[in-house]
């Protein structure tokens, strides 16, 4: 690695935002054909650094060198011209346009007068696709493609612009395990052909698997480099957080008791009227964590909305402690003892223009002790809000701040604090409880979920993070195309089997045992 030329170097790069030093004299080197892992918690400055390199922000200090030459990158156009390509965490695609149109956008091949030459573009796309093993149909509409293929379109977009340095921002966040393998193969092909890659992630396992070198950021500073061959997940995690972290969820075996949630024959349609949940059945018991695994968009969101009273059902029943809660208002569902941490917390879990203390009483403002008749009881409200935000380490710890002023991670902690702390919870529904949270917070939240379980709450966990499902659940149900395709105890599940189920491949029933060979079971 010492002989390979350095294609990108960052020296003393500094970026200040009002009140925050987002990047503090960062030094970084990327060699030709290597995969550099960039690891760090939320707010460690990874995204800021990449946006500086991609020309979306301007640095306050420091310089960027490309192929040894100091450059100033004014905007993404500049970055593209200098061979830097970026695949954003949230794909920057136009769903109603075709693959070709998306790829050529901004860099169109034209014949006089600005008329598009789609044929030439398509030809180049197919060449690139063959060269790098990125199979894609150039005429397909992007909205019809699965996420993994959309990502290929994003990578092709960068290659089409002759990118030699590729920044992948959390590329695995939305993929199934099989798609992740596919992505890793693509990365191997790319690096073999001399493309250098910066791989941003907070998933330690993946960083160890694919990266040649790892640089760890904490609080805007580089805390060190690591060699994946000599590192473990634990060592990287403690570098990232600055203390040792327990990665495995430490929990006693579940003691399931009576049935709390029982869903039968549920049919749901999404906003466009397409049926997304079909003849769905599920039962969750007090004192257990049932994890629903599945690729996003297989009906999980609608299922949760139906249980919490936010979506009308087509047919079917939802029973909570034996009482029918199908089609009742969200308030009744809440009063019946359902707590809900929605998937999109910023949108559905809080009112960002309200103060933190008011966000803490969103479901109970009308009841004693928070209300006295038509007046609200500020003393109790403030005291409760103080207690909850402190218990969940919401920072900055001022309940008179508006919710919108908190960082994303702290907003999530605040919503979780409220839902987890409300009294008499029978059923806790948590969707993506740790999405976007850093290792330290994840550890804490997992502990709280287990605590609630042990207190006798039924927990319905929905997550697209397979590791989270595997480590936290007592039972796992895999959802595919609106149905539970299979349910199993967590200790009988592994990444591969669940991954296949998530892709809709149902385990064949075991073949009849050949005569004479008997097994126990």
């Amino acid at each position, binding site marked *: 690695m010492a002989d390979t030329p350095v294609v990108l170097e960052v020296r003393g790069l500094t970026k200040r935002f009002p009140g925050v030093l987002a990047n503090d004299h960062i030094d970084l080197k990327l060699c030709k054909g290597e995969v550099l892992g960039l690891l760090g918690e939320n707010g460690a400055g990874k995204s800021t650094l990449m946006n500086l390199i991609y020309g*979306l922000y301007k640095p306050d200090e420091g310089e960027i060198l490309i192929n040894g030459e100091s450059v100033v990158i004014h*905007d*993404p*156009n500049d970055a*593209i011209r200098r061979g830097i390509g*970026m695949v*954003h965490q949230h794909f*920057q*695609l*136009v*769903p*109603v*346009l075709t693959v070709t*149109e998306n790829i*050529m*956008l*901004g*860099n*169109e091949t*034209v014949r006089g*007068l*600005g*008329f*598009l030459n789609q044929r030439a573009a398509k030809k180049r796309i197919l060449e690139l696709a063959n060269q790098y093993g990125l199979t894609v149909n150039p005429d397909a509409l992007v909205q019809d493609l699965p996420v993994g293929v959309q990502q290929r379109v994003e990578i092709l*977009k960068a290659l089409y612009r002759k990118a030699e340095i590729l920044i992948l921002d959390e590329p695995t966040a939305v993929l199934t395990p099989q798609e992740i393998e596919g992505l890793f193969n693509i990365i191997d092909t790319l690096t073999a052909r001399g493309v250098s890659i910066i791989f941003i992630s907070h998933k330690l396992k993946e960083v160890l698997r694919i990266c040649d070198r790892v640089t760890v950021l904490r609080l805007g500073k580089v805390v060190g480099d690591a060699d994946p061959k000599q590192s473990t997940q634990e060592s990287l995690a403690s570098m990232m957080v600055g203390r040792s972290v327990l990665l495995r969820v430490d929990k006693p075996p579940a003691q399931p008791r009576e049935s709390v949630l029982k869903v039968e024959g549920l049919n749901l349609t999404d906003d*466009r009227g397409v049926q997304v949940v079909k003849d769905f059945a599920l039962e969750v018991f007090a004192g257990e964590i049932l994890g629903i695994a599945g690729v996003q968009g297989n009906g999980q969101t609608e299922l949760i909305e139906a249980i919490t009273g936010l979506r009308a059902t087509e*047919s079917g029943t939802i029973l909570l402690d034996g*009482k*029918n*809660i*199908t*089609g*009742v208002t969200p308030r*009744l569902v809440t*009063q*019946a003892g359902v707590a809900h941490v929605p998937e999109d917390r910023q949108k559905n879990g809080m009112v960002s223009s309200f103060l933190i203390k008011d966000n803490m009483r969103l479901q109970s403002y009308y009841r004693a002790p928070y209300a006295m008749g038509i007046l609200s009881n500020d003393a109790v409200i403030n005291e409760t809000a103080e207690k909850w935000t402190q218990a969940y380490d919401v920072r900055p710890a001022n309940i008179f701040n508006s919710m919108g002023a908190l960082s994303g991670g702290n907003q999530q902690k605040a919503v979780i604090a409220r839902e987890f702390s409300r009294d008499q919870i029978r059923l806790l529904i948590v969707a993506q409880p740790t999405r976007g949270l850093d290792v330290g917070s994840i550890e804490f939240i997992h502990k709280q979920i287990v605590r609630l379980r042990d207190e006798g709450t039924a927990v319905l966990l929905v997550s697209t993070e397979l590791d989270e499902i595997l480590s936290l659940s007592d039972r796992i149900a895999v959802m595919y195309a609106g149905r539970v395709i299979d349910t199993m105890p967590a200790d009988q599940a592994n990444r591969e089997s669940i991954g296949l189920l998530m892709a809709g491949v149902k385990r064949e029933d075991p073949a009849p045992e050949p005569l004479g060979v008997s097994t126990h079971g």
Partner: protein
Amino acid sequence: MATLTDQRKTESSWLTGWREHIRITRAGVFGLLSLFLGALLLLRVAPTYDPTLITTLTFEGQIPDLRFFAVGFMNAVGVIYVLGGLFALIPIEHRLLHSLKLIWLGINLALFVPTVLVITAIGTSTNMLETLTSGFRLATPIVIGALAGIWCERSGVVNIAIEGMMLTGACLGFITVFLLAPYLQSQQAQFLGVLIATLMGGVMALLHAWLSITFRTDQIVSGTVINILALGLTSFLRDEILLAAPGGEGGVSTGTLPILAIPILSDLPLIGPSLFTGQPIFLMMFVLVIGTHVILYYTRWGLRTRAVGENPKAADTLGINVIRNRYINVIIGGLLAGFAGAWFSLEATSSFDNGMTGGLGFIALAAMIFGKWTPLGATIGGLLFGFSQAFRTRFQILEVPIPEEFIQMIPYIVTMIVLAGLVGKATAPKADGVPYKKE
């Protein structure tokens, strides 16, 4: 708590009880309506007329006259209505069947106006060429207005100010002609008038762009502001310039824009006089429709515009200047709206009245939505409205025994039926109405 839940349960099971048997669908509702109208026609209307009476539709010798036995025609239409209604009520869910249902209902809708015409003109003859020709003429401001909307909204800026931009164009275009007429030949003055009308639409659009793109004002508010501003400004200018002039408004008369005939094409029967002979703004409509379609779908600018209207951030990361793209598209839209405004004061009439655009800017918006934000679809929508106006005039001539107010409602009722029933859910460009802010 428990009682409440239980009560809800019985309620919901009662609700789902009948919902399980009957599903209310769009095709179902319109099917029932069609069934009802068909039965009305067969049982109540047709028997009241003498079956030997004949309705004649004339085309000024362009093609042979069409002659119908009116009662036979009514019965035929009645049967088509009843069968179409029954067909739409077939309770089987199937994609192909569904589209067939909608097509049949669409035919029924299209048959409605000719049927009323045949009934009202019973025993006499009526000039259809005139209706056809005026339908296309009346569609002109609606189609061009709809194109103005498409340019704006495809780039992500909602434009409800088409009305105001048209009105401004109409007013200043006429004032230009009014002031220049003494000094120039009337055709030169008219040309400058159309030019100024177009540019003034662009100026109003620039204001809309400035408010809604640069200052990220709510685009509906900005549009409303422009509509109100245009109303006040034009009536002020009319008072101060037109009415204050010696001899008043009628003091100068240059006549309307000249009628042009496109060589060869205008000699074709029927479509020659209705489509290829006409005044310049009307003829330009066809060029603008085709031009908009080609630019939007086959050029670099069009691709970028569609991308900016759907996902401005994606476009931005690829180095496309979102703000510039939106500005230019909004201004192009404004130029078109101003041009359409000239139709009112220079082509259809040679005068300017307060509020003379009469809400056609909003109808243009409806035509755009009807066409799902595509130029060709919007043209069909615009023609639909133009023709329903033309038929209104025809009915007035025939002295249909329906209050005139009801007849004047026709285009608006068509708007509502079309928006509610036939186009289904129209999907706007995704970023339409969302101001873009660079992070």
